[in-house]
């Protein structure tokens, strides 16, 4: 039961949020709570920081009290793999903007999504990636003159 509880989404998010609330509260203590003209920059964060700590602890406490029922809130992380994989690929493509530029990175991302996430043939993935990336480059960079991240290749 204890192990299941620590895999529970509410318990994990509650713990993360209470840590965030504590951080906000402690940071706010370094700024003036009140000044000569009224409340200072620490006033508002102090209260919502405390609010986050209190509410997240209540949520975690409620979940622990429910105990055996905790698995209701458990997340099937295996099923979430497609979403998480897409996000990871998106993040890697963002990291590649500096060396490769938007157009090439975006083509690689599209190729990954089509071939790996949607399991389409590699040729379909390549054609889709080249087509979409070219359409974006022509529409935004060429036709609309919108600035896009450029890499060492100059586009």
């Amino acid at each position, binding site marked *: 039961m204890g192990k299941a509880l620590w895999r529970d*989404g509410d318990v994990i998010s509650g713990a993360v949020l209470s840590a965030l609330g504590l951080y906000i509260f402690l*940071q706010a203590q370094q700024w003036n709570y009140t000044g000569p003209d009224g*409340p200072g920059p620490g006033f508002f*964060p102090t209260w919502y920081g405390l609010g986050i700590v209190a509410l997240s602890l209540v*949520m975690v406490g409620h979940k622990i009290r429910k105990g055996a029922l905790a698995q209701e809130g458990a997340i099937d992380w295996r*099923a*979430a793999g497609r979403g998480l994989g897409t996000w990871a690929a*998106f993040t890697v493509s963002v990291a590649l903007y500096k060396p490769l530029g938007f157009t090439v990175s975006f083509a690689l*991302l599209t190729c990954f999504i089509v071939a790996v996430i949607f399991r389409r043939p590699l040729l379909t993935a390549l054609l*889709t990636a080249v087509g979409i990336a070219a359409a974006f480059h022509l529409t935004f960079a060429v036709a609309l003159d919108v600035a896009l991240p450029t890499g060492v290749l100059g586009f």
Partner: protein
Amino acid sequence: MEIATSLLHGFAVALAPANIFWCFVGCFLGTVVGILPGLGPAATIAMLLPLTYNMNPAGGIIMLCGIYYGAKYGGSTTSILLNMPGESSSVVTCIDGYQMARRGRAGPALGIAAIASFIAGTFGVIALTLIAPPVAAFALSFSAPEYFALMCLGLSLVVLLAGSSLIKALLSMLLGLWLASIGTDLFTAQARFTFGQASLLGGVDFMLVAIGVFAIAEVLSSIEAGEEAQLLPVPSGLRNLLPSLEELKACRFAFLNGSVTGFLLGVLPGAGATIASFISYGIEKAVSRHPEKFGTGVPEGVAAPEGANNADTGGALVPLLTLGIPGGSSTAILLSALIIWGVRPGPLMMQESPDVFWGLVASMYIGNVILLLLNLPLVPLFAQILRVPVYILYPGILGISVVGAYSVSGRLFDIALLAGFGLLGWLMGKLKYPAAPLILGFVLGGAMERALRQSLTMSQGDMSLFLSRPLSACMLALAVLLLLSPLAGRVNRWRVRAVTENG
């Protein structure tokens, strides 16, 4: 008389060729977005907002608002033909709309949805035209304490109706307040929560939060769900889309019910089009002579919710334009758009920016006509959009999100933040934290802190100021009552039922 003169001025603005064009673009995009499951108006408005920075404010808001209400027209198409709502506000349309389509009445079902949307949408705009001026006049008496209390009331309503867990909705809202605090404090120039990053001194751009939490997160959720459905045959030809006289007669009360229920619930922050559509469906069933037939494909079951989700738009714009208080995610993004263009939504907006205010209101009359014309004869064409493979659509949305976010600042740091907010939005969805309170907390956070600090400066730190002023005391008392109301079992059961249906 004054309203009529102002509205005429609005029509002069809205009928300018450029503004008619933007109205058409917004309605067209809205219909497309409404048809596509997984892409909502909030995400689309957020994605396109950066591209409207250089537009005339009247043209910009006319287009973005067109997306907002156009999506509600388009949402019914997927509900009826796929049994998969294009928009959350069209969930209830699936019940009878899909059954009508299965019985070979897809055309009339689409026709009834378009006619109900037109009637109720126009009713909502008329009500907005008549109600907005007195509400704005009343709000002129508001000072900092009343504004703070009003924002508390608005946020508490949103929190109450945002998700089945009140605690998660509150946490989401507080997270929004924190994100709004990041940057330089405007009163004292103190840097707050910047983690030593100079890029954060100016704060987190609203666009990054909105695009990340809505557009990126929606793409991730849709990819994860991987749903594919079978499209029913799409009727072609206007004649096949028109309902029979008997069907129209059966929908008489549903048109009225949807219009009134949708508008009234639209005015309430947090209630939104989805709850309005469920309540109007419930009313329709309750007063029907044949409630047992609901769910088998009755036209009233399509007309009432489709009317309600369109009348909601007019209602939602009342607090946004007259008080500067958005009631949901899309209106929160519209509020930011107005602020970016230098327009201040609130009681003085009608005087300070009459072109924008009345131009927008007048454009909505025109937009409803455009949408009726688009949605009746062109439905077969729009339905073809559903044949675009998702593996082309989703990378496209990711690409537009990046282009939109990068075009604001030209900083790669912002794109990294965008990816972070995308993950946050996706995780929130998985862990059942509602996104609307976060976005409203973020939008209202700065103004709320300012109003609170101004109020306490006025009273030299005395909190009793909020209770000594009748209006602020009433609003704060109401906000507390709302937040405590789930403690009453029956109220909480109703609330959970409403928000569960919402989700």
